[in-house]
């Protein structure tokens, strides 16, 4: 279980996330909607434990342990994994090397080659990680690493952005694999938190709970499909007016 209580997060001294509460039970996938700049990525980064994202208040617990003070790698080894939206190129480090490092400790599973086959990245194993990769290739490469890592909590930041129609079905399939969607609910352990701006990801991955985040706070919790229908109809402006009680900046004049 992931339990976030009264969490506030600052970046370079400026508070971005305010008093967020969120709980994901084992086997559940939740979706975080929100306009650009709402603080969705900041929340994911804070859960993963990136040093730049300072928790100023509240706590993050994972599998019953307070992880607020743990480093990124400690959280990764506890079972939290994240797909990066814009991962860095690491020259000289091959995709194969990272996948092999992710597989460490999961030796009973699939091999690097099998996972690369599944993600259609066999030709990328001996290339420098992320070097010259297209948008879709980056997404698949991130999922390839996560499939090797086998996290219990997967954090996905806009998994559908920049992906063409050919790739999106495969990416949806890989996400379902990662989140154990083919496993009966009672046996499912893996949790997911997916950020989406457009909501397209819901066409491929089923999620139990949705949140809307605006201005660094979560104002709405509910059925993600219903939420998406409302957002599609009225836009995020309605959310801002509804739960923040303010007029969106672009409507002020």
């Amino acid at each position, binding site marked *: 279980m992931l339990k976030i209580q009264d969490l506030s997060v600052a970046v370079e001294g400026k508070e971005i996330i305010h008093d967020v509460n969120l709980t994901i039970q084992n086997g559940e996938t939740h979706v975080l909607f929100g306009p650009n700049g709402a603080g969705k990525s900041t929340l994911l980064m804070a859960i993963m434990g990136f040093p730049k994202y300072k928790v100023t208040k509240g706590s993050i617990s994972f599998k019953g342990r307070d992880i607020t003070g743990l480093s*990124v790698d400690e959280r990764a080894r506890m079972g939290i*994994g994240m797909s990066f939206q814009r991962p860095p190129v690491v020259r000289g*480090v091959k995709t194969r090397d990272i996948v092999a490092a992710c597989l460490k400790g999961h030796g009973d599973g699939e091999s690097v080659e099998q996972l690369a086959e599944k993600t259609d990245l066999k030709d990328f194993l001996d290339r420098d990680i992320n070097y010259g990769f297209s948008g879709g290739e980056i997404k698949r490469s991130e999922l390839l690493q996560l499939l090797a*890592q086998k996290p219990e909590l997967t954090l996905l930041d806009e998994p559908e952005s920049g992906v063409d129609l050919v790739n999106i079905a495969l990416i949806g399939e890989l996400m379902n694999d990662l989140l154990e969607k083919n496993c009966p609910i009672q046996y499912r352990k893996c949790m997911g938190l997916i950020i989406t701006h457009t909501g397209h990801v819901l066409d491929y991955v089923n999620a139990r709970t949705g949140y809307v985040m605006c201005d660094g706070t979560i104002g709405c919790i509910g059925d993600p499909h219903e939420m998406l229908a409302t957002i599609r109809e009225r836009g995020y402006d309605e959310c801002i007016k509804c739960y923040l009680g303010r007029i969106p900046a672009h409507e002020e004049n």
Partner: protein
Amino acid sequence: MKKINASKTFKDKAKAATSKAAAYGKDIDLNKYVSSGEEHPYQADPSQLPPKTKEQMLGAGVMLDDPSQRSGTYLQMDNTPIHSSIRQDGVEVMAVSQALEKYDWLADYLWKAVAVDSDKYTANVELNQNDGYFIRALPGQKTVFPVQACLYLAQARLVQNVHNIIIAEEGSELHIITGCATASREEPGLHIGVSEFYIKRGAKVTFTMIHSWNPETAVRPRTTTFIEEDGLFLSNYLLMKPVNSLQMYPTSRCIGENATVRYNSILVAGKGTSIDVGSRVFLNAKNARTEIVSRAITTGGNIIARGYIEGNAADVKGHLECRGLILGENGVIHAIPELKGNLPGIDLSHEAAVGKIAEEEVIYLMARGLTREEATATIVRGFLRVDIEGLPPLLSAELKRAVEASEKEVM
């Protein structure tokens, strides 16, 4: 060494250059070293050399216990050739002094690519006791395994004067591994190595040089390669062990159409090491190509990493990539990439970057479960990654060990 033709002229030119400082690098006082050393006995079976000597040679990529992966071997201790042998037809390996006795025409190749009066170091080679290897691939002959050569500095305070001639005749293919090493880990010495390469039409040469000196050695190699039409020269250089002062600027001249040259250099400089290393290519014939890649890491030493490409003919293309990583305190990397184009229609480019390990990359790997130390080591290993053609497994292991040693210094 016996030189048949024109040696008087060379001697005269050399005498006039005995005080001529090199264009780059610290000026070495040659008077601090002795020019003549003791003679060493010939070794018909180099596997009988003392284990310590063999181990040091192995550290520079020279395998003496199992030569089955080599097509020939040349060993020089100080200024004495102590062994030369071949295991494959179509390739010749011997001391230059011996080759000059055998071939009258060879004198025409001496000091043709490298000028005898380039500086006081080349002059010193001509004017003092010297020898070196003669490696030649006969026309159309292709070696499968590399020829290995070791230039070994045994006597303390000696100047080792080396003059090598490498000829790849038309349509031949030659792989060479040259290792340089010292007997002592602390005694000073000076190595001056002149190498003249002649790659004829359609020939291919891969040359891998591994330096394993000690922290008191000064090194001044002087190398030039001529590449004729459709010729290919791949040069790899590894320096991962400490050295006191090393300066070299090997040069290739593409003199035939479609001549291609590629330089890879891997440089690691710890505290007390000062190196000035570059690669220089003149693209003098139509459609000639070059790529120069260097990777430099300092853990406290000074590195000047140079590169120079000059385009002097139509449709030539060259790229220079120079990357430096500063790890630890007090290290300096000065990258100097230079391009000169002398006519329209040429394509020359360069990229240079010097810096520390990007925190973003470390964090990315940590998010996959690697500790900070593992992530840093992975990035350093990736930076130094070399996929060098013809590198034997033992040498790869040696390279890996050297990289790990560098990593330990960093941590």
